[in-house]
């Protein structure tokens, strides 16, 4: 238990790894802009999501294996692991009728 806690402290004080240049994405009126991004296969990507709505949204994708809550009028980094070529849809879970997008990996 104690070693686990120590491991956590070590993890928490380390700096999180960031991919080179994050992809800028905005959420407004529960829609993503751009709603489609194209990236290279085999490279980790980071999406910097700016939520311009007043309410929180969860960037959610079972295909990308990522779920991240971004509070209203706030922003957050969505880190995505290296992917193989294909189409990976994502959505804003709280407004999935409009908040839809896709990551295309080539």
């Amino acid at each position, binding site marked *: 238990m104690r070693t686990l806690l120590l491991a956590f402290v070590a993890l928490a004080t380390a700096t999180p790894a960031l991919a080179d240049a994050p992809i800028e994405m905005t959420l407004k009126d529960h829609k993503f802009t751009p709603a489609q991004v194209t990236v290279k296969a085999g490279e980790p990507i980071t999406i910097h999501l700016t939520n311009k709505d007043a309410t929180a949204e969860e960037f959610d994708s079972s295909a990308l294996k990522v779920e991240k809550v971004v509070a209203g009028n706030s922003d957050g980094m969505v880190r995505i692991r290296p992917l193989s070529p294909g189409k990976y849809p994502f959505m804003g879970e*709280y407004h999935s009728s409009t908040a839809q997008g896709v990551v295309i990996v080539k």
Partner: protein
Amino acid sequence: MLATLVIVFREVIEAGLIVGIVLAATQGVPRRSLWVSYGIIGGVLGACLVAAFAGELASLFEGSGQEIFNATILLLAVCMLTWHNVWMAGHGREMAREMKAVGADVSAGKRSLAALAIVVGVAVLREGSEVVLFLYGIASQGGTSQSAMLIGGALGVAAGAGVSALMFLGLLQIPAGKLFSVTAWLITLLAAGMAAQAVLFLQQGGYLQVLQSTVWDTSWLLSQDSIAGRLLHTLIGYSDAPNGAQLIAYVATIAIIMGLTRWEHARHPRGNSIPKPA
């Protein structure tokens, strides 16, 4: 209203299945309902706090606060589940045999209940904070009328609780002698799935970025978006495209729990015996 119902149902069932397993695993233990209630109440309060401070939480650890938090509480739950299973290996059979009659080892039983109450709390907190954020969002923008939202939310809770109750009642159909070994396995797989999920959160937070490539992809067979896929994800940690680090965490958790369980068995040879002849 339908959107509210679906989301609330999904989150409630995910927490509810875990509560169902905990209830089945503690069948016959005095005052377990009280402890499970503590877990649920603590989880709901925690969910409101997490939702209220979502922005502040996220900004910790250079923007990875949410991921660190999720991974930490999941690993806490993994430790508590492990502890419970190991404790049961030493005392479980005695307990099943004697506890109702003599209340043997009640204080140790209480510790195990406290561990499981924490597991329940973590499950409710994780799913509950999403529900709170979602409902708060709907309420503040006022697109759907408040009453429709309330009805949708209430139906979602009822449906989620209903399905969870069915699973719990199903588990109780297992003969008492076998129930504890079934729940021990369920708890082991639950813990393994949570450990794999914690690894995913750490990777998403920018840590532990090793062995990240997908090892296999079974989304064609059972998508994690389907209801069955979601339920299996909650129960046994099913992932339709796991990566290497997740698989290692999954297998290692099972191995550690099994190893500790055998060790504890060996320390309590009599606790493991067939009921004493009268």
